[in-house]
C-alpha cells in the first residue's frame, strides 16, 4: 500500500489520485470498527485532537469527534461564534496558544478561504480542514466519493451532476477536485449568478444550461443546500422560483439513470432544493453519506498521524 506523505489535509486539490484512493480504501477498512459491538481501537491512543470550529456545525464536528474517539484519541471541541474579523485574539494567536498544549492534530473550520494554509505556516502540528470559506471541504468530498463507490463499485466513468450554488460551495469544489482526479465526469447546473467563472477548467467539468441537461443519464445527483439568506438578494428572486428550476423532484429525477442515487451534504431545505419524497425515497443515499463520514474522518486522522498502527 502506498504511503501517505502529507502532514496536513487542507484540500483535495493538493492530493494525488493515489492519495485519495488510499484515504478512501482505509475508510472502507475503518467501517468494520464502526459495526462492532465495542467501537473502539487503540490506534491513536495518547494523541490529542482539537476540533476548532469558527463556524457552526453539528454533523461535521460530531463526526470528527466520534472518529477521533473510536481511534482512542483524546478529542477537545472548541466552538467559537466570533469570526476572526471581529475584535479579539487573532487566529494565529489562538492557534499558537492551543499549540502550546501540544495537540497532535487541529481540525479546523473557518469562514475565510485559505486560512488553513496560513495556519500551516505558523504551527507544527497536523491540520485537517473541516471546511474553509468557499474553498474546500475535503472530508465531505471524500465521504461523498466513498458513498458513490459503495453504490457503483467504482468512480471511474461515473457521471455526477452537482446542482445548486456552485460559487459559494466548498462541497462542490472538493467533489470536483476529487472526482475528476478519479475519472468521474462532473456536470454542473445552477443559476448563472451562482456559477463561478472558469469552473469548467478545474477538470472534467461541464457547465450545463439547465438542470435537466445535468440530470440526463447521471449516475449520481448531488443537490447542494441553498442558503436561505440569499433569498430576495441579488442572486435569485426567491426559493419558490429557485425550487422550480433547480429543485429535484420525482419528475426530473427520471432523466437520471434508473439506478442513479441522490445525495446531499446537509442540512437539507426540504421542499426547496429537494422534495421530501426525494430526501426520504429509495434513491436517497444521504444517511449513508453521514455514516461514511465517520469512517472517512477516521482514515484522515489516521493518515496524518503517520499511518502507524499500534
Amino acid at each position: 500500500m502506498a504511503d501517505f506523505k502529507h502532514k496536513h489535509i487542507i484540500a483535495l486539490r493538493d492530493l494525488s489520485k493515489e492519495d485519495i484512493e488510499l484515504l478512501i480504501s482505509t475508510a472502507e477498512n475503518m467501517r468494520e470498527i464502526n459495526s462492532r459491538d465495542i467501537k473502539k481501537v487503540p490506534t491513536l491512543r495518547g494523541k490529542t485532537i482539537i476540533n476548532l470550529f469558527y463556524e457552526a456545525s453539528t454533523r461535521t464536528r460530531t463526526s470528527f469527534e466520534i472518529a477521533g474517539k473510536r481511534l482512542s484519541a483524546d478529542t477537545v471541541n472548541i466552538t467559537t461564534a466570533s469570526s476572526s474579523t471581529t475584535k479579539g485574539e487573532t487566529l494565529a494567536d489562538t492557534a499558537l496558544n492551543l499549540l502550546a498544549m501540544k495537540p497532535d492534530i487541529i481540525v479546523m473550520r473557518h469562514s475565510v478561504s485559505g486560512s488553513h494554509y496560513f495556519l500551516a505556516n505558523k504551527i507544527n502540528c497536523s491540520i485537517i480542514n473541516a471546511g474553509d470559506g468557499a474553498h474546500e471541504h475535503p472530508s465531505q468530498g471524500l465521504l461523498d466519493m466513498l458513498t458513490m463507490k459503495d453504490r457503483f463499485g467504482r468512480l471511474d466513468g461515473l457521471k455526477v451532476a452537482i446542482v445548486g450554488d456552485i460559487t459559494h460551495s466548498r462541497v462542490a469544489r472538493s467533489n470536483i477536485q476529487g472526482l475528476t482526479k478519479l475519472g468521474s465526469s462532473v456536470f454542473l447546473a445552477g443559476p448563472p449568478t451562482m456559477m463561478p467563472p472558469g469552473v469548467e477548467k478545474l477538470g472534467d467539468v461541464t457547465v450545463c444550461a439547465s438542470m435537466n441537461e445535468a440530470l440526463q443519464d447521471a449516475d449520481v445527483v448531488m443537490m447542494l443546500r441553498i442558503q436561505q439568506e440569499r433569498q430576495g438578494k441579488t442572486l435569485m428572486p426567491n426559493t419558490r422560483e429557485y425550487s422550480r428550476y433547480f429543485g429535484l423532484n420525482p419528475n426530473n429525477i427520471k432523466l437520471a439513470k434508473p439506478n442513479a442515487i441522490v445525495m446531499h451534504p446537509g442540512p437539507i431545505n426540504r421542499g426547496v432544493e429537494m422534495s421530501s419524497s426525494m430526501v426520504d425515497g429509495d434513491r436517497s443515499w444521504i444517511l449513508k453519506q453521514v455514516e461514511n463520514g465517520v469512517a472517512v474522518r477516521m482514515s484522515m486522522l489516521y493518515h496524518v498521524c503517520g499511518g502507524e498502527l499500534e
Partner: protein
Amino acid sequence: MNLLIKNGRVIDPSQKIDNMLDVLVENGLVKEIGKGLSAPAGVEVIDATGKYVVPGLIDMHVHLRDPGLEYKEDIISGTKAAVAGGFTSVCCMPNTKPVIDNKTVANYIINKAKAEGFCNVFPVGSITYGLSGDRMSEMGELKESGCVAVSDDGKPVNNSELMMRTLQYAAGIGIMVISHAEELELVGEGTMNEGYTSTELGLKGIPRVAEDVATARETLLAEYTGAPIHIAHVSTRGSVRIIREAKARGVKVTCETAPHYFALTDDAVRGYNTNAKMNPPLREADDVAAIKEGLKDGTIDTIATDHAPHHLDEKDVEFNVAMNGIIGLETSLSLSLGLVDDGVLTLNQLIEKMSGNPSKILNLQRGTLSVGSVADITLIDPEVEWIVEADKLASKSKNSPWLGQRMKGGASGTVVGGKLVYTR
C-alpha cells in the same frame, strides 16, 4: 553644493534630448547642459558613465501614512524609500488621520517634508470632508495651502451628482480631481479579481466591470462638464478602452497605472498571498496585455506606484482580513525598465511617463532638465542587479510581492533641488 554630472546618457523628452552629455547644477537649478563641461572650483563631480541622467521621477500616487498612521510609514521613511527608488517628487494621498481636508494637515505635511524629508512632497487633499463622501472639502484653501489635486482615493465618490459638481467646482479653482474609480455594489465583499483563480481558491471575486462602470461614469461626467479628470490605478482592459475612446472624443481625461498591473496577474494570489492583495485587485493576462497596449499607445499617461505600506500585523493574517495594498516606491523603476526591455515603451517614452507627464497633469513645474529649472535629477543604472530584501528596504513596511526576487536596473543616484540625497 554644486554638481557636475559627467559622461551620462542624458534623456530629457521635454527637450527631445537623448545624448551623451554633462549636466551642471548650480544653486539648486540646472545651469548648463553640454558636451565636455569642465567643473568650476568647488563643484562636486559625479561620474555617470554607463548611467541614464533623466529629469527626476515623479510618483503622483503614494500613501505616506503621516500624520496618524506612522506605524506603517512616515514622511521621513516614505521619502527615503522614494529617493532610493529614484523619485524626486511624490504626491501623497489624503487618507491619513486626520484626513488632508484642511490647511493645517496640508501645512504639517509640507513643512515636515521640507524639514526632514528626502524629496519633494505634494499633498493631495480630499474631495469630501473626512472622506465622508457627502460634501466637498474646501478645495480652494487646500490648493492655496499647497495641495496639487483632490481625491478620495481608497474609495469612490459614490454620489454621481456630487462627483459632477466636484469636477465643475475644482475646474473653477484649477485643481485636478483624481478618481478612485470603483462601483462599490459590484465589489461587494470581493477580495480578489473574479476569474478562474478566484474560482479555484474559493475567494469572493471582484468583477472587472466594477472598475469599468465607474471609469465610464467618470469620463462621461468629465465630458459633460468639460472639466478635467485623472483616473487612478487603471487595471482592466475595459477601463483602458473607455479612456482611449474618451480621449479620442476630446474628453480631458488622463490616467495612471501601477507597476503591479503590468508586472503581475492574479496568479500571484495563489497560496493566499496577502502581499498580492490590493485594490483594484491584480487582474488576468488579458488585462496585463491591455495595460501594456495602453501604455504604448499613450492612453495611459503615467506610472504611479500606489505605494501602500501596511504593518506585518495587518498582512500576516487570513486573506480576507488582510489590508489592501503593497509598497512600490523601491521596485517601480526596475519593473518599469522591464517595459523597455520588453519593447512596450522606448526609454524616452518611459521617462516621459515617469516624469514629464505627471508634472504636466498636476502642473508641478518639474519633469524637465531645461536650463533654469529645478535640479531634480535621477541617475539610472540600467544594468545593476539586486534582490528585494525586507531588511534593506527603506520603507517601514515590507508588504511587497517581490520580496526575495531579483530585479534589474534601478536608481544609482537621486538629486533633489540640486542636492545629491541618495546614492546606491
